[in-house]
């Protein structure tokens, strides 16, 4: 009975989809996951903001009063600009009176005193003040220490990584400024000398000049890999489970008296697949609503720019990659007799995907190389590798077409094989078939 009825496939998709979407677990997961992920991002951010909003009281100890003032200004102004970057929305009013603020003794985060009596007694007194909590820490800038560029910071809490590198950066700059001043370079001139380089890369694409957009490209690739990975791990297993469940409950037998195994497999795959896409769709919508203002801002600032071709490739390769891996899960579900067996096989299924992620590096470095070309043709790699190539530098159209064609053909092939294993597998329960047995089934089902 070879003919395939689209009506049956549609009925099976519909049942599979509706039953799953109506399940409480689906609704709970759909709502809960963003809450957890959001929490994971939001709470630490909130915590760090709470910490930084507390004013830190530092003491700069140096015999050179002028140098102490330079260090203080450097720390205050840098803390100020960093703060503006973090809170883009509230920066407007603050930035206006930035200069006047600098003269003020306290910025938002730091109170810095200059102590010009570096002596052992003073040091002991400062240590007492640190332990009693009167100050948060002090910088010991004795002449020897500065000359050796070995400066000690002693504080209540051992300084975090960010703070440490920030501090040393500011001190570098302060010392440079002092050295320049000593050599007769004025403050303004020094600023000019120390202005950092901002590199802009321009990429030539088919004769057109486009601003290379590393950020946008990076995001486009990262999101693809993450989504594909997540979708395959989350929903591939549910395809496997759906097949297994049906096998064990013998619903199959009833269904096979009405529909063919190919129809069942296709319906299951697409139905469960659509559930996954729905969930991911909901999450993406939620995330983008939340992140829209920031995204819009950076997009208008030209920071993130994703080519339309990349977006199309994203949708196509994501869908096909997802289908491909799900169909492998379905095949596994048709062969195994229990979920434990499936878990053992899970790693093997994911292996090509992991390999593809490993190969991303070389392909990104040389998207036009022969290796990149051939690996991006392999169906199990192409959803990631061909997509990466398109995102970086679109390869010739025939290569994209061929890779898509191979991908689609592989999915169809796996589906047909799967349907055969399934049909025979379900009617011989009890033990996992050996590989020779599976081969025999495939041959058998050919007849």
């Amino acid at each position, binding site marked *: *009975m070879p*003919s395939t009825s689209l009506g*049956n496939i549609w*009925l*099976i998709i519909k*049942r599979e989809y509706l*039953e799953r979407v109506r*399940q409480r677990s689906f609704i709970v997961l759909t709502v809960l996951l963003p809450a957890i992920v959001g929490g994971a991002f939001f709470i630490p951010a909130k915590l760090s903001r709470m910490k930084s909003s507390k004013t830190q009281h530092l003491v700069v100890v140096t015999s050179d009063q002028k140098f102490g003032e330079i260090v203080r200004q450097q720390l205050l102004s840098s803390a100020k600009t960093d703060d503006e970057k973090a809170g883009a929305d509230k920066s407007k009013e603050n930035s206006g009176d930035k200069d006047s603020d600098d003269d003020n003794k306290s910025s938002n985060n730091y109170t810095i005193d200059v102590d010009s009596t570096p002596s052992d007694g003073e040091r002991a007194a400062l240590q007492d003040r640190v332990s009693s909590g009167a100050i948060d820490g002090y910088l010991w800038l004795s002449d020897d220490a500065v000359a050796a560029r070995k400066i000690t910071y002693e504080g209540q809490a051992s300084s975090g990584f960010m703070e440490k590198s920030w501090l040393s950066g500011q001190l570098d700059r302060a010392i440079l400024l002092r050295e320049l001043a000593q050599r007769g370079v004025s403050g303004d001139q020094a600023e000019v000398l120390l202005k950092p380089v901002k590199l802009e890369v321009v990429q030539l694409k088919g004769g057109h000049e486009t601003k290379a957009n590393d950020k946008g490209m990076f995001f486009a690739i990262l999101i693809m890999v993450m989504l594909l990975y997540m979708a395959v791990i989350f929903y591939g297993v549910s395809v496997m489970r759906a097949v297994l469940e049906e096998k064990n*409950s*013998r*619903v*199959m*037998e*009833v*269904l*096979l*008296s*009405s*529909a*063919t195994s190919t129809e069942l497999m296709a319906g299951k795959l697409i139905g469960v697949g659509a559930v996954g896409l729905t969930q991911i769709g909901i999450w993406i919508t939620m995330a983008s609503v939340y992140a829209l203002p920031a995204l819009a801002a950076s997009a208008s600032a030209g920071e993130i720019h994703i080519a339309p071709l990349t977006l199309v490739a994203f949708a196509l390769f994501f869908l096909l990659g997802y289908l491909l891996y799900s169909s492998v899960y379905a095949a596994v579900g048709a062969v195994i007799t229990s979920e434990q067996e499936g878990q053992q096989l899970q790693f093997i299924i994911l292996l090509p995907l992991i390999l593809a992620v490993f190969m991303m590096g070389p392909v990104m470095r040389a998207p036009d190389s022969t290796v990149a070309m051939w690996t991006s043709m392999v169906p199990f790699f192409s959803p990631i590798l061909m997509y990466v190539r398109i995102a970086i530098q679109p390869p010739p159209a025939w290569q994209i077409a061929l890779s898509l064609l191979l991908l689609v053909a592989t999915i169809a092939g796996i589906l047909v094989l799967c349907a055969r294993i399934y049909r025979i597998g379900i*009617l*011989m329960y009890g033990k996992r078939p050996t590989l020779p047995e599976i081969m025999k089934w495939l041959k058998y089902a050919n*007849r």
Partner: protein
Amino acid sequence: MCSTGSISESRGIAAGRADAHRRSSILGLPVNTVELNKIRKSYDEFVAVDDLSLVIRPGEVYGLLGPNGAGKTSTLRMMIGITVPDSGMVSMFGEPLRRAHTQRLGYLPEERGLYKKMKVLDQLVFLGELKGLSGHDAARRAGQWCERLGLKEWTGKKVEELSKGMQQKAQFIGAVVHDPQFVVMDEPFSGLDPASAMVLKDAFLELKNAGKTLLFSTHRMDTAERLCDSICLINHGRAVLEGDLGKIRAGYGKRNVQIKYEGDARFLDDPKLVQSFNDYGNYVEVRLAAGADPQDLLRAATSSARLSKFELMEPSLEEIFIEAVGKANA
């Protein structure tokens, strides 16, 4: 003597009936619902069904009988196209089995084959739609059947919340919701309490009276004896007996005697009269020796005991089966 039980003969019967069908279809008589012609199925070395032939006529209740593991389920699966025979032919409604035929048949598998988490009515509508009903029609008919079988309050419940008997009823509705010509049921009564079995049996008869053809498999000979018009007895994948139940029994003759007596039972020990007997306490069932005249047994019994009952009986299906299998194995 009665040799109807041999395999070659049972095939002969089916083949003969198939010929009769061909003639009858030329004459415009109804075509057979199912014909199996020497179907064979093996799994690895194990031969599940071995050159099995049978004919199911329209409107009859047909029993596929045999012990567990005889090949009943394998035969049913091939009959409705779930599996394909290694060799042989399956015909349905007078044509080689096609996909389109599945719309006209209903199937009730041996174990419960329903989605546990799905609501009863949704499930029945889904099964009906797969058989080509519109969603609306499927819902209407499923609702009617649920009412008829006392499942009305349960239509909104999930299948897993139903008792085993209820599930079997739901499964039955799933098999008949699209009003099929031909209903195939694998062990429909297994695991059912007597009340549920009764409801199901009544539903059976209702379908039969509506002109449907029914096929069910069972290992319970007494059930088959009460319900079937025709049977096929299979053992080790082979048909041991096939055909009209009444004719099969008549072929075996009245060779059993039920005797109720008080007193000396020495008449039972005469090997010329009695081949074997089975004492049930209240009465004893005697199998006559070959060539023995029941009148001689009656005379022998009255000479030593007082009889309150002496009845010549047709053999039970169970006895026929045991005898036929014994001959086939010999």
